[in-house]
């Protein structure tokens, strides 16, 4: 009988009032791949950080191969046999050294290693490691010159040089192509055969289908599902991940008038399936999909930040191919980006300046800004969206997250749009602000087509007239927001089958 590699019992962790881990129980077995799923903010990364020693738990315990395990820091965790390969690969490799040195780096750090590097010795040892791991690259190549996949392999090979009991892979395929991912999976298969317990964090259903022996799902800081009987029930896993508390928001579904935005045979990347989509005047369309489903890419293409591989976009019948964000805005396509902290908020500015930033031109006389007009317009929006602030001259940093997001949305409602794109508008927003934003978006929808990019189903159900599901760069389902077949919707998201309860354009 094999002892469990890692056992986590009742793990607790809070940040201030925010209870992130609420008693997590997880068991990892040797020679098995456990996939950890969970939406953003479910607590996955905190769990990983506790296991790999970056953070200490507030409560609960862990055992490693039967012995108590409480790493003081990351180095301690590695020494005891828990190794993590993080999402950003360059944490795991030294880009300016060659492959051989990277593979042998951990040995160079050991005190038992002599003062001088014996070059021939090092290369021979590195060649051996590379062969064992099935890595086929020039050992003298600089790591920074290698492909992302090769770098990933080297990061994992470095981790394996420690002969770990537990290997944690945090979204390893997020920047890999399909063939590159295949090579990674082959390596993971080999490690599994060697008896390593692997914790694999991913959103990509295709990955999960390929390698999962079992699936653990987290939601709101707790385990919401464990699936370990073959065949694995992937749809149930997605349901457990997304949850869908029925919302008490009633959406009076509009089908809209004439078409505003038309996508014809649009391929997001070379080799992706063509996308055909129509969004009508007055209609709010939610594009739902997991991370990597292609919805961010679609938003970037529509906003002039990226080019499609092929296909056409038309707005009101005219061809639309923006050369830049500036161009897109000039043609009436506005976007409120996700991650407002990095992509939208100007921390040094007050509320009025933040809100009016895109349309300073129309608030100027010649080049001279009219502070009075800025304030008046901002004041109007504060009233309409119910932004809680003392004055529009207050710094943006004085607002709560929800109110900041309202300002960022208000920014794009100052002037009429042809197409309004909202990427994750409810990120880091409390329920009250979410309702306010949704209501206002729907109330002002006439005169434009609105596309909302979302990962959460219940958010989509609150705001959309129509829900379009994306997976692997393609549209795999479309549902009118009326008596939605949630099971079918979840199946679409997890990539099980392609169904549609609404008309396919």
């Amino acid at each position, binding site marked *: 009988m094999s002892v469990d590699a890692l056992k986590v019992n009742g793990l607790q962790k809070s940040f201030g009032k925010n209870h992130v881990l609420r008693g997590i129980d997880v068991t990892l077995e040797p020679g098995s791949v456990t996939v950890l799923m969970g939406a953003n903010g479910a607590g996955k990364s905190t769990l990983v950080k506790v296991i790999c020693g970056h953070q200490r738990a507030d409560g609960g315990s862990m055992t490693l191969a039967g012995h108590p395990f409480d790493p003081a820091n990351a180095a301690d965790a590695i020494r005891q046999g828990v190794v993590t390969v993080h999402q950003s690969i360059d944490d795991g490799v030294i880009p300016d050294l060659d492959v051989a040195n990277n593979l042998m780096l951990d040995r160079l750090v050991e005190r038992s290693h002599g003062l001088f590097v014996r070059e021939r010795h090092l290369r021979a040892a590195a060649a051996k490691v590379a062969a064992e791991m099935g890595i086929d690259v020039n050992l003298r190549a600089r790591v920074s010159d290698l492909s992302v996949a090769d770098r990933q392999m080297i990061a994992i090979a470095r981790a394996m040089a420690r002969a770990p009991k537990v290997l944690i892979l945090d979204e390893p395929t997020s920047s890999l192509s399909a063939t590159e991912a295949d090579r990674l999976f082959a390596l993971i298969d080999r490690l599994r055969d060697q008896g390593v317990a692997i914790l694999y964090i991913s959103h990509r259903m295709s990955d999960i289908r390929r390698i999962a022996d079992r699936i653990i799902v987290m939601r709101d800081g707790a385990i919401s599902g464990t699936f370990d009987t073959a065949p694995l029930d992937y749809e149930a896993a997605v349901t457990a991940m997304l949850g869908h508390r029925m919302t008490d928001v009633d959406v009076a579904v509009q089908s809209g008038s004439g078409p505003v935005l038309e996508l014809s045979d649009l391929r997001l990347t070379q080799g992706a399936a063509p996308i055909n989509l129509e969004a009508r005047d007055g209609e709010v369309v939610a594009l739902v999909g997991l991370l990597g489903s292609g919805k961010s890419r679609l938003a970037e293409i529509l*906003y002039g930040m990226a080019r499609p591989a092929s296909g056409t976009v038309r707005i009101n019948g005219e061809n639309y191919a923006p050369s*830049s*964000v*500036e161009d*897109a*805005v*000039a043609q009436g396509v506005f*976007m409120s*980006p996700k991650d407002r902290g*990095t*992509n*939208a*908020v*100007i*921390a*040094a*500015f007050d509320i009025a*300046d933040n809100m009016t*930033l*895109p349309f*300073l*031109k129309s*608030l*100027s006389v010649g*080049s*001279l*800004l009219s502070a009075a007009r800025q304030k008046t317009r901002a004041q109007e929006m504060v009233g309409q969206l119910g932004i809680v602030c003392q004055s529009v001259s207050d*710094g943006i*940093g*004085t607002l709560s997250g929800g109110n900041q997001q309202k300002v960022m949305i208000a*920014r794009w409602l100052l002037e009429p749009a042809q197409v309004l794109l909202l990427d994750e508008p409810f990120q880091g927003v409390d329920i009250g602000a979410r309702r306010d934003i949704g209501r206002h978006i729907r109330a002002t929808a006439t005169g434009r087509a609105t596309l909302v990019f979302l990962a959460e189903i219940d958010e989509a159900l609150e705001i959309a007239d129509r829900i379009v599901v994306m997976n692997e760069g393609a549209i795999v389902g479309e549902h009118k927001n009326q008596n939605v077949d949630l099971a079918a919707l979840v199946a679409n998201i997890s990539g099980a089958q392609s169904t549609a309860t609404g008309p396919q354009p």
Partner: protein
Amino acid sequence: MNDRFLDFAIRYGFLILLFGLIVYFSLAAPGFFGPLSAAFVLQSVAITGILALGVTCTLVVGGFDLSIGAVATSALMLSAYSMVILEHPTVVAVFLCLGMGALVGLINGLLIVKFRVPDLLATLGMMFLLIGLQRIPTQGNSIATGMTLTDGTVAEGTFSAAFLWLGRHRFDVVIDRLLPMPVVIFIGIAVLIWLFLGFTRHGRLMYAIGSNERAAALVGTPVNRYKIAAYMISGVTASIGGILLAARLGRGDIASGNNLLLDSVAAALIGFAVLGAARPNAFGTAIGALFVGILLQGMTMMNAPYYTQDFVKGAVLVAALVFTFYLSSRRSGAGH
């Protein structure tokens, strides 16, 4: 109560300190207080102040321009070369210098936005390049009327009266021949940049770029164009500083301009602290330059030795940076 005191200190601390200095020097150094002395202080800070206003524009977009000192001395040499050796009229010499400044700014900007060279490195390279380049046409010699050229002829051109007027003319204000031309130009540029940065949409967008470049780009701001423009403004103001320097000295004096660079950067950074702005701003930069000027004038009049000047400049700068970064962060912390 405590918060309000802190807020008051951050907002008005530097202006009160400035006022205190003026009172102190007026009492301690006879002849310090008066229009003549004020005009002199302004004159001594005019050139570094003009450079500092340019560097303020690059600081606003989150950049930095190390080449301004070298641009100024290059303009100094170029104006001398143009008038003394090529015997150009004043207008040609002035436009050559302004064009050179704009071109250097454009190249700096392109290096930074198109070739992705970090701003400090790009402008550092440009600085060295210019320090060398300005000496090549004269093989390291200063330029003056009557100098012998490499081909054996004598340079017959002179700095025209109109050009020298730019550096030496004094307007009658309160008393005759009081206000020097460079001061008028300094004040003019300060007002222009103050209006531009504070009250035009271009200025607002430049501040947005400096605070969050990605967010500014995502609302459709042509970020690259604004950044290049900032470096061009910096280059042109630096060349104006060089023209005034040439007109004051009356010769093309080889010099590295390092002190011009350091003094003007100090003025711009001290400006962060004025009125608790905690960010680059034209008004603060002008006050910062003035602050240093008053301090140095007063100390010289009290016979303080030369090495205390750098010490005092450094102390003022450190104090200003503490004002800006420590006190302001405490204030914003208390605001939540």
